């Protein structure tokens, strides 16, 4: 079993108007630009179920995209209601930790946090 603290949030918050943030129980801090998070939506409408090909393109997403409401889904993820009315994606914590953009997670030497 993998290390649960790595994929369990200690805090889920709004960082600023365009940034969503999670502090994980292992102490790591992840920041997600809203447009990228919307673009990464894992739902069946945004990702083709059979081919895995992404159906939503950056052009289709409004520049000022932001969440309206963020809600827990059970114990394993969150659902985001977006300002473009999209809300079908469940962002699991495993998925969000994988998505972390910081240079440490992406194999760089220095963490931006």
């Amino acid at each position, binding site marked *: 079993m993998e290390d649960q603290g790595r994929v369990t949030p200690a805090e889920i918050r709004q960082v600023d108007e365009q940034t969503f943030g999670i502090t994980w129980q292992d102490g790591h801090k992840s920041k997600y630009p809203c447009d990228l998070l919307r673009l990464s939506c894992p739902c069946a409408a945004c990702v083709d179920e059979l081919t895995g090909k992404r159906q939503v393109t950056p052009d289709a997403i409004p520049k000022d995209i932001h969440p309206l409401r963020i809600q827990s889904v059970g*114990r394993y993820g969150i659902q985001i209601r977006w300002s473009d009315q999209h809300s079908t994606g469940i962002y699991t914590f495993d998925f969000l930790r994988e998505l972390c953009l910081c240079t440490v997670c992406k194999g760089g030497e220095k963490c931006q946090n």
Partner: protein
Amino acid sequence: MTNNLTEQKVLEALRSVKDPDLKRDIVSLGFVKNIRIDGGRVCFDVELTTPACPVKDQLKEDCIRSVRNLEGVSGVEVNMKSDVKGRASFETAKVLPGVRNIIAVASGKGGVGKSTVAANLAVALVKAGAKVGLLDCDIYGPSMPLMFGLVGRKPEVTSDERIVPIEAHGVHVMSIGFLTSDKTPVIWRGPMVHQMIQQFLTRVAWGKLDYLILDLPPGTGDAQLTLTQTAELSGAVIVTTPQEVSLVDARKGLQMFEKVKVPVLGIIENMSYFSCPDCGKVFEIFGRGGARKISEELNVPLLGEIPIDPAIVETGDRGMPMVAARPDSLTAKVYGIVARAIAAQMSIANMKPDMAKAVDFQWKTKGA
């Protein structure tokens, strides 16, 4: 004669008493309360995390022994109490407020006796002193009305339009069977199942419960998914029979709960063996030990092995779970042990900090 007996000395002595499940001493766990010293008489409460504590008697003895050895003590009185710990902020939770622990009883495969196990575990927890609810989540084949002798009963509805569970053998029971006729089958597609489960979780007046047992339909389908997404499940128990074909599916069920981060409290082997009432000989009809194998392989506790007992079918069909009908039978005793093991594992899981807290917030924008 001066008596140097102080509260501090009593606490020091009690530090030697360890809870074998939580693996810490009862003083640092905060279990010792209300110490009163009257001359040589010492009196205190020990508040456990569940009334169904498997080692309650042993802890009590250990407490008495450790304090009696103190200088100046002439008598010790221990009151064993309990305050069931639950998920964080259960009082204010949006879904199932007032319910401390929500435990799903699941199996990968049908026909392993899951409903029988759920019904008897619920009664066993009541007998141990807990407040227990039982939600029959099997939309297509509800069996709780029959097992609890409630066929034909209709639940009351409160003024704020919430359904009141029906109490039987001390258990607060809710089932789709109360709302439909038992002669017409429920033929619903996924979205209806989803909706009904949602209603059960949000529109039933459960009141204050220590444990809400969810009897899940077999498999890993719509109902299971809705439950794991809507309710903050505290833990899951997997029921299996000893055969390999059932074990394969038990593994799948276990993995589903791991995926949605619901702690698996353990695995129960049902129909484990038959103990002949005449000669006492034990027959392992379907083989035995399969659940033990999985528990070792996947590192989850084996909660117990429940025997095959023809009386369980007979009592169940008469609306009396075995634990209520024949409390002195071997089967009822085994259920008592399994219920205590579940309560202990739930307490252990609740001590772990690595649970995600529920969030629900609106995004703040400058324009708004």
